[in-house]
């Protein structure tokens, strides 16, 4: 049964720097990187290449010794130029200097009509070999999908409601065939439904509108309506013992290409957004691209923060850092490391706020596009305010109590209060609005790690 669901809770953070609809095919970046930290659940990464090796797009470069069937592959062909490690030799990045014309590892190809005849085992095998498997994220915990598990359903969110989010209509234009093939493949993986959740508040891209073999659900409301976790909660909530998988449309298309064309194709469109970008727009590139060429000569200021992803769930990178595996977006905003005289009480119309305490006037101007910087706007304190997290979390979950259960490491309470239903991104808005400035997302991940590993 397809459903139409309307959510009221949440908050759209309206920022300056929305991307224009133009898609640029500029010079490709020189380097691309694979970052194990983009995934949860890679415990013992083992690199299978060395600096100086040449790889093709789709060559295995890394696997997890604890989960050795899942292969992580090179997004592009080229030479491994760097393997960056951090403290305690923790693997940070495998950097590839890309070839001018890409070479691909070849995998088995299938025609569209063949796909129906494939068995689940064949599908799983090819996804693993072709390096497309890590697109599948398993809930609870938001980890790389377990090869031996059978999910009760698979969920695809067909829109992104985060601040400055790219328009999926532009990202995936013309990929109908691959998208449908990908959905057919997903259908093989679960005995339940494949849910495709579209945005009821905007024009639905034809690529999603005509999708077959899926439950097509419609969601409307403010962010986090596009978060797949929120959608799952309203469609088919995760109970104890349940396993569901999620995947974003890029992953579905990558599945389709792997089977129809027999190659690991990581070509994608990303949006360069944010108030500090001169011309925010879309760029054609590949997964893991360096942002160096995109941001060069394209910035308004030089004291900026580069973020792979969006301002709520993204991660800070440096000026020649690489875009994350799951990110369709790079955001550039001003750094906020300045003092402000009486900044804690001065009335302001220029700082965005969900709240309306004295002097916070941004609510008077809901259509204004705000420039937000990285200043924390205050220091961490004990929990004081109540009832605000609840207004930005459209789930029947008690956010404050769940967070406190995690801080107290109370396993029974964490489970009873619904930790299986959430991952960090669902709590990102709570972290944003928190008057006490806690790192809510970090706390949620701590809780997930506790439940999973102890």
């Amino acid at each position: 049964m397809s459903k139409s669901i309307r959510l009221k809770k949440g908050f759209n953070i309206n920022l300056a720097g929305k991307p224009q609809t133009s898609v640029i095919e500029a010079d490709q970046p020189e380097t691309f990187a694979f970052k194990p930290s983009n995934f949860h659940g890679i415990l013992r990464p083992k690199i299978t290449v060395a600096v100086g090796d040449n790889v093709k797009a789709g060559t295995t470069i890394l696997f997890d010794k604890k989960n050795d069937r899942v292969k992580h592959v090179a997004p592009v062909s080229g030479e491994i130029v760097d393997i960056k490690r951090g403290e305690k030799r923790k693997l940070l990045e495998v950097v590839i200097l890309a070839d001018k014309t890409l070479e691909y590892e070849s995998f088995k190809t299938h025609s569209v009509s063949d796909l129906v005849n494939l068995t689940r085992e064949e599908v799983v095998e090819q996804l693993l070999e072709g390096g497309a498997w890590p697109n599948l994220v398993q809930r609870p915990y938001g980890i790389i999908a377990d090869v031996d598990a059978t999910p009760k359903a698979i969920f695809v969110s067909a829109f992104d409601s985060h601040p400055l989010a790219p328009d999926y209509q532009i990202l995936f234009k013309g990929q109908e065939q691959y998208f449908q093939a990908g959905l057919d493949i997903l259908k093989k993986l679960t005995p339940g439904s494949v849910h495709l959740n579209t945005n009821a508040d905007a024009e639905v891209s034809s690529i999603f509108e005509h999708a077959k073999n899926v439950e097509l659900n419609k969601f409307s409301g403010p962010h986090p309506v596009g978060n797949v976790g929120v959608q799952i909660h309203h469609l088919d909530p995760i109970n104890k013992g349940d396993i569901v998988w999620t995947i974003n449309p890029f992953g579905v298309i990558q599945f389709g290409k792997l089977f129809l064309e027999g190659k690991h194709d990581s070509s994608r469109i990303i949006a360069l957004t944010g108030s500090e970008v001169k011309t925010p727009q879309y760029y054609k590139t590949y997964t893991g691209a360096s942002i160096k060429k995109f941001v060069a000569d394209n910035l308004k200021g030089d004291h900026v923060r580069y973020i792979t992803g969006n301002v709520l769930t993204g991660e800070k990178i440096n000026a020649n850092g690489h875009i994350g595996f799951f990110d369709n977006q790079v955001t550039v905003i001003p750094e906020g490391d300045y003092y402000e005289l009486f900044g804690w009480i001065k009335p302001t119309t220029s700082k965005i706020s969900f709240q309306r305490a004295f002097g916070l006037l941004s609510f008077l101007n809901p259509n204004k596009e705000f420039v937000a910087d990285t200043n924390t706007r205050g220091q961490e304190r004990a929990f004081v305010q109540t009832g605000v997290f609840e207004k930005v979390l459209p789930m029947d979950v008690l956010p404050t109590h769940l967070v406190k259960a995690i801080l107290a490491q109370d396993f029974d309470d964490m489970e009873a209060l619904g930790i299986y239903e959430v991952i960090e991104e669902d709590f990102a808005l709570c972290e944003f609005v928190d008057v006490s400035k806690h790192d809510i997302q970090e706390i949620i991940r701590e809780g997930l790690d506790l439940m999973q590993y102890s």
Partner: protein
Amino acid sequence: MKFLRDALDNVKPNFEKGGKWEKFYYIYEAHDTLLFAPKDTTKSKGVQIRDAIDTKRLMMTVIISLLPCLLFAIYNTGLQHFLAIGQPEAAISDIIWVGLIQVIPIVVVSYVSGLTVEFIFATIRRHEVAEGFLVSGMLIPLVMPPDIPLWQVALATVFAVIIAKEAFGGTGMNILNVALTARAFLYFAYPGDISGDVWSYIGSGNEAVAGFTGATPLSIGAEAITTGENVVASLNAYGSGWADGLFSFSNLFWGFYPGSIGATSVFMCLIGAIILILTGSGNWKIILSVVLGAWATGLLFNAIGANAFMEIPAHYHLVMGGLAFGAVYMATDPVSAAQTETGKWIYGILIGVLTVLIRVFNPAYPEGIMLAILFMNVFAPLIDYYVVNANKKRRLQRATV
């Protein structure tokens, strides 16, 4: 303002690790962040931007909502002084002057004594000075009698901050409302100075006017239980000759009658409530449910009508004593109130019910709201416990369907 920043940066090394006043870092830090919003930036992972609100602004919003009550308190303290000594024609400047002289020292003592404790604890425990006391420090004077000895204000404040707050871990961890704890402390430790004939400031060398008994609307109600006189008639009769209609319904609403310094005016509390609700700093559910609980209990007692105080029209309960002030400023303290949304309704209604219950059945404590809120502060975690359990049960039931 660069010179100010430079001055702070100049002395900062003395307070940092290895500096000669290293121990007092958090005292320095409190002043620094009061002048300048800090330059901290978000972490590399997690949200990259933060909402413009912080606890300082939130607490300041509550203080702003208290300003109508404070300003009214200054005027009314002066006014009641001149009414009580039989000079109702006193010039407005004199009224305000007397009000200022009585009220401002209490406010100052409350802040100085409370903040001293806060600074000491921040220094000993090595944490930032939390802003919670900024609100408590303003609430405490407003619920004191106008003629309270200053040393008692200081003692009560220190007691409340240490026992009700710091003993539990500081702002955000307390179970009881700090300001009400201060008042309850005085109530039980020095009953002579906070009950009876203390609600108007007479001043030494002045004689109270004939007919002045020091009564409050609540004490008249409590007396009616034994005398059986009609409470409304007694209220209307009080003050005749020296302050006609002192306890009339409209005067009780506007607040020009003797009582706690800043808690008499329902009108000013309504202004405060509007500020709190519009700014999201106070919870409307709690305010509304306290009022509804008190009103419904008043109606119920009207129906029973076993004694004269029970027969008082229910809406009188809403304007007498500190119910409005308690509902708007005390019950809504987010730390000591129930924290779940359903719990807030239950918490508020029970405060209203208990307040009227205490007023009508326990004349030893004519003002019920103080004890009602403290009592429900203790029960708030229990209310939350059941609301949270209901959420857990919903989740479990879903699993078996």
